[in-house]
């Protein structure tokens, strides 16, 4: 809803019944679907189902004490898988901490995410190699990093060269809650003034822990950038095809030198904020039911069935999900604790006397107990 109570214009391509139709005013986005084939559609569905299965398994593992915390993304699969596949092979992604779906579209090992929540490390994958940067837990900090990175892409002259094999763009993910942080406003300003090749992708899941989006903004979030000179658009965040097309189009624009833009994917956080949260204390049950009925997987399944995809495929996906769950359970149970030296490694890139001294002290202290036992 707009402040005046009107309906916000929104890019939608799949009706809740799974009927595909691109409204004439969004034809420029529709072109991006034309280049997809059935295999792409099946891949989208497989990954949405995979990440949901993963998510449910992780909540179970947390409940069993295998992780300190889990951060579910249930309900946001279309926004994440769709936009993730809209990101090009040279592009860089700067996530918040709930982007498990985006992660798998770019080959991040799911166990890397479990490691963070289990307390084995704070991240650790190679962001330059994967182009999927590290999870950022302090809200909106990554949005400025993405902006600086995109400024660097500009300095490198890899924007608007006319050669799609070398041009690059950057996308940053953040939630409705994070838009209240000053870093998002500063990033919009820096990106606009430097014409950075950057897409701001806001997943508006409508809840920031217990605060509804109405506590974060009065004006619809897709308009947040306009005063800074960053145009915005809202997409149906539960429509994987629309999310794919809008992301792909805006990343193309950024790569081609048209500057930054903002996408608001309107979706819903079906689960809790984290496993430490209890949404029944603040969220009306009927609202949850309303959104569950608009589930992104159900909608896409209806679309696929209309394309002639049959039970065999969905059974195969279910079996693959069970196998994935079994595998991550086994790998989580087998995951060793990190060694002592990890406390001191990589605090600095260059040698540092204090760190070396404190590591030597702790090693000696720990070893003194071993000696005691030997006697």
């Amino acid at each position, binding site marked *: 809803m707009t402040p005046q109570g009107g309906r916000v214009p929104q890019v939608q391509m799949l009706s809740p019944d799974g009927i595909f139709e691109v409204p004439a005013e969004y034809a420029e986005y529709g072109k991006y679907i034309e280049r997809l084939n059935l295999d792409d559609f099946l891949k989208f569905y497989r990954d949405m189902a995979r990440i949901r299965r993963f998510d449910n398994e992780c909540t179970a593992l947390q409940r069993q004490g295998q992780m300190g915390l889990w951060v579910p993304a249930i309900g946001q699969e279309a926004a994440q898988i769709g936009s993730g596949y809209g990101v090009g092979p040279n592009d860089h992604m700067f996530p918040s901490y709930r982007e498990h779906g985006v992660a798998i579209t770019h080959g991040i090992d799911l166990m890397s995410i479990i490691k963070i929540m289990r307390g084995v490390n704070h991240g650790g994958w190679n962001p330059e190699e994967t182009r999927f940067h590290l999870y950022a837990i302090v809200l909106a900090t990554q949005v400025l990093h993405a*902006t600086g990175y995109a400024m660097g892409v500009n300095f490198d002259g890899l924007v608007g060269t006319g050669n799609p094999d070398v041009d690059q763009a950057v996308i940053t993910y953040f939630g409705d809650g994070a838009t209240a942080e000053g870093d998002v406003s500063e990033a919009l300003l*820096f990106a606009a003034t430097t014409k950075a090749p950057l897409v701001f992708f806001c997943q508006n899941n409508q809840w920031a822990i217990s605060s509804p989006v109405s506590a974060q903004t009065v004006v619809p979030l897709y308009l947040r950038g306009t005063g800074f000179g960053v145009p915005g658009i809202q997409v149906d965040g539960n429509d994987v095809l629309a999310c794919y097309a809008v992301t792909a189009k805006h990343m193309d624009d950024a790569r081609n030198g048209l500057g930054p833009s903002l996408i608001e994917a309107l979706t819903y956080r079906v689960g809790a904020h984290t496993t430490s949260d209890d949404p029944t204390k603040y969220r009306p049950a009927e609202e949850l039911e309303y959104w569950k009925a608009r589930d992104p997987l159900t909608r896409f399944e209806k679309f696929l069935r209309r394309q002639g995809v049959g039970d065999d495929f969905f059974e195969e996906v279910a079996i693959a999900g069970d196998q994935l769950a079994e595998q991550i359970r086994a790998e989580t149970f087998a995951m060793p604790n990190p060694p002592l030296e990890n406390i001191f490694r990589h605090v600095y*890139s260059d040698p540092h006397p204090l760190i070396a001294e404190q590591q030597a002290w702790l090693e000696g202290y720990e070893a003194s107990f071993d000696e005691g036992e030997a006697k």
Partner: protein
Amino acid sequence: MSNSVEMPIAKAINAGIQKAMQNNNKVLVFGEDVAELGGVFRVTEGLLAEFGNKRVFNSPIAESGIVGTAIGLAMRGYRSVAEIQFEGFVYPAFNQIVSQLAKLTNRSEGHLSMPVVVRIPYGGGIGAVEHHSESPEAYFSHTPGLRVISPSNSNDAYWMIQQAIESNDPVIFFEPKRRYWHKGMVNLDAPPSGMHDAKVIREGTQVTLVSYGPMIPTALQAAEVAAAEGTSIEVIDLRSMSPIDFGTIINSVKKTGRLVVASEASTSFSVSAEIAAKVAELAFYHLEAPVIRVGSFDVPYPPAKLEELFLPDADRILEAVDRSLNY
């Protein structure tokens, strides 16, 4: 003979940045008013003309944005020299500095390095309005992942800024703003030492006096006055607040048996406090008197007409030296 020229500290920092930019085209300079104006203290004067607006540019007035984008640029392979206009304006960037800049190398298990220099003019004594005279170095020195240094003279300024830019770790580079126009000789051929080395800048036998940044001329003045009265003070320029070169301090204390630490910062929980604690631990049996801290009071920086009473001067240092000698 070595190739030496005389220049004030501000010019020496400028020349050091210029040299670093000539040596490495990934070095960028940005911040508020750093381009055409050359910064409010003219430290970046002339760099825009030499290196162009892709390497020297004005940022919006948004300190978190300055440091946050410097981090992103570091991820992209650039080495930013980001200017914070005055130390009192660094706090909007504090989150990006302590929760991101300081931690990303660790978070990434070494996949990322953060070669970012945050230049901050600091300290008082310039008759300024509020937020232009503070000494916040302890906040940053307390943060693992950062390196914190401050030159006190032109030669160190010229070399330490280059060493900071070459560092693969984030360096908070505190510039002694009230000494910007103090002239000194700069040896253009070779650095005096590493940026984390403390230096004995005046030898003495009876009391060790450790100080840094803008207080160094005050410390040397105190030593001069004391010498005239027959007291021999050894003055150490700390140069690096994190990490601290305790070896140089301890060696001196073993010789003198007494230690006074002087800085402009509020005394409690200060860099001076860390030095006092560590020296008590490492050189207890060499001490003839407790370590004495000389600093400013634990109050907000006062209005300019009161700052002379607030800031330690040579007399306050000498009062502490006397207390140490008479203990």
